[in-house]
């Protein structure tokens, strides 16, 4: 029954979002959705799938919950116009018409938005979104975070209680409110992706399921808001980054840097879609951080070989990104382009002032070590690499830096090579 599972998974955000609007209580909406899914598993294999699975599930879920309320208060007389329809097919079409696209949009946005409640730490936001919106099991989420199932269960329960206690925004959002919600939600989707792209702990350096889930959510969001250039940018960025996943680790799970990657392993289909989206987004002439980052990823995707990379363009794009979103991490990334264009001395001068802010950042010391190596300042390079290893988040990161150190030691034993 793989097709039913797929249908239920893809219907989940819309159905749960609508049920939440009716019941205003997350637990009640989840129970109703659960019940509707059970009914679907029973009747769909026999009757075939309904024409509109989403409307069917909302209808059945809502009726189930209304039934429950009645069962609990038998003494109350039922209003006659609120009769329960046993077979949902008849009224389904009518219901579907009322649930027009604009409702769906705000329902799903609300569902995503309550997961990024500002009081929740980021890891809880992500766990909650994966549980509620994506419908992953606690076990699956625990595996993704390399946490124990009971710890994850607790984390999600706490997050849910936090959300339940908070004011859930049920009014239809105005323009400003909607764009604020969108911004919060896009950030959360980006964080889910990042958690998969460079895992913050444990042994696995890349967690593909988290990346794929983030892409699925971004696609959902973009389908709801097809004209938002920053969502196009986000979607494009995620696709272009994820396209490189098959080339980012070698057979021993070691990190392979962009310039050493086998580009024939990059996923061309994802790159094609990513390029199409960033091109479409930039037409709007409303650049935002995601679009610019996507444009940078696009420059890499366009280069058949590392030496074909247009570093001038990358430098220019990072400059725009620095003004849109000033951050030492962005300056650090720009320094890579500067090193390619104007050499390690200039790049080093650029990142040295960042030391105070990035003193606990793995990549800062990784890049610093690499630049110092290029300049032949071996002892300083070694100090930087040692610091990077101490700050490594995953075994793969540490192993990658150790590789650099080994090379340094080898070169140091062959003094003739040092000058080169």
């Amino acid at each position, binding site marked *: 029954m*793989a*097709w039913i599972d*797929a*249908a239920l*998974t*893809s*219907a989940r955000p819309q159905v749960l979002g609508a049920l939440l609007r009716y019941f205003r209580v997350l637990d009640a909406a989840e129970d109703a959705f659960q019940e509707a899914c059970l009914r679907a598993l029973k009747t769909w294999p026999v009757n075939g*799938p309904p*024409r*509109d699975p989403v409307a069917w599930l909302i209808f059945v879920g809502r009726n189930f919950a209304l039934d429950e309320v009645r069962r609990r208060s038998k003494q109350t007389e039922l209003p006659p116009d609120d009769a329960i329809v046993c077979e949902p097919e008849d009224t389904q079409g009518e219901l579907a018409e009322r649930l027009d*696209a604009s409702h769906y949009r705000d329902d799903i946005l609300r569902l995503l938005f309550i997961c990024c409640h500002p009081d929740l730490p980021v890891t809880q936001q992500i766990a909650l979104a994966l549980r509620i919106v994506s419908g992953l099991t606690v076990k699956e989420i625990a595996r993704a975070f390399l946490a124990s199932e009971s710890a994850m269960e607790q984390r999600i329960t706490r997050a849910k209680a936090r959300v339940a206690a908070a004011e859930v925004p049920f009014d239809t959002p105005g323009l400003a409110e909607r764009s604020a919600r969108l911004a919060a939600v896009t950030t959360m989707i980006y964080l889910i992706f990042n958690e998969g792209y460079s895992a913050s702990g444990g042994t696995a350096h890349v967690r593909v399921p988290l990346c794929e889930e983030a892409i*699925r959510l971004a*696609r*959902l969001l*973009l*389908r709801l808001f*097809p*004209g938002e250039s920053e969502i*196009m940018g986000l*979607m494009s960025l995620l696709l272009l980054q994820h396209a490189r996943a098959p080339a980012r680790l070698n057979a021993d799970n070691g990190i392979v840097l962009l310039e050493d990657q086998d580009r024939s392993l990059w996923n061309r289909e994802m790159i*094609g*879609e990513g390029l*199409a*989206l960033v091109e*479409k987004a930039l037409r709007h002439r409303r650049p935002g951080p995601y679009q610019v980052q996507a444009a940078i990823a696009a420059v890499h995707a366009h280069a058949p070989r590392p030496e074909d990379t247009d570093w001038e363009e990358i430098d220019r794009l990072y400059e725009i990104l620095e003004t849109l979103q000033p951050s030492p991490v962005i300056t650090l990334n720009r320094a890579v382009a500067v090193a390619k264009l104007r050499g390690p001395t200039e790049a080093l001068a650029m990142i040295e002032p960042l030391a105070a802010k990035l003193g606990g950042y793995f990549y800062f010391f990784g890049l610093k070590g690499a630049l110092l190596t290029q300049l032949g300042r071996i002892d300083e390079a070694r100090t930087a690499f040692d610091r990077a290893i101490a700050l490594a988040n995953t075994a793969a990161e540490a192993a990658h830096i150790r590789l650099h150190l080994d090379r340094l030691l080898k070169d140091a034993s062959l003094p003739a090579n040092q000058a080169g």
Partner: protein
Amino acid sequence: MLYSILCYESEALACGRTKQEDDAMMVRLRAVQRKLANEGKLGPVARLMPTTTATTVMAGREPLVIDGPFAETKEQLLGFYVVDCPTLEEAIEVAKLLAREKPHGALEIRPVAVFNPVGPSK
């Protein structure tokens, strides 16, 4: 007679397929395509990118460019074939061959009125 076979499917479901499922389906579809090509029936085949990449230009004296697909429907046009078959009956048989290799969706057969793969004729 040329027929187009338009492949409609719920995009959410199509995007929800795992890579393995999708690859397996494409292998089966390519086998059908090879058979049709050997029989001289197969014209252009296209798989379209998701509708999120779509841009729509509304006709008019001042054409309006909007993002997204033209129609908000439950099922979207995700790809198409052009096949050369003497009768509708045979085009239906071809569509059935393709339909058997797809998990859901529908194939709409539309006879082609004008077909010009190389631009305007002189």
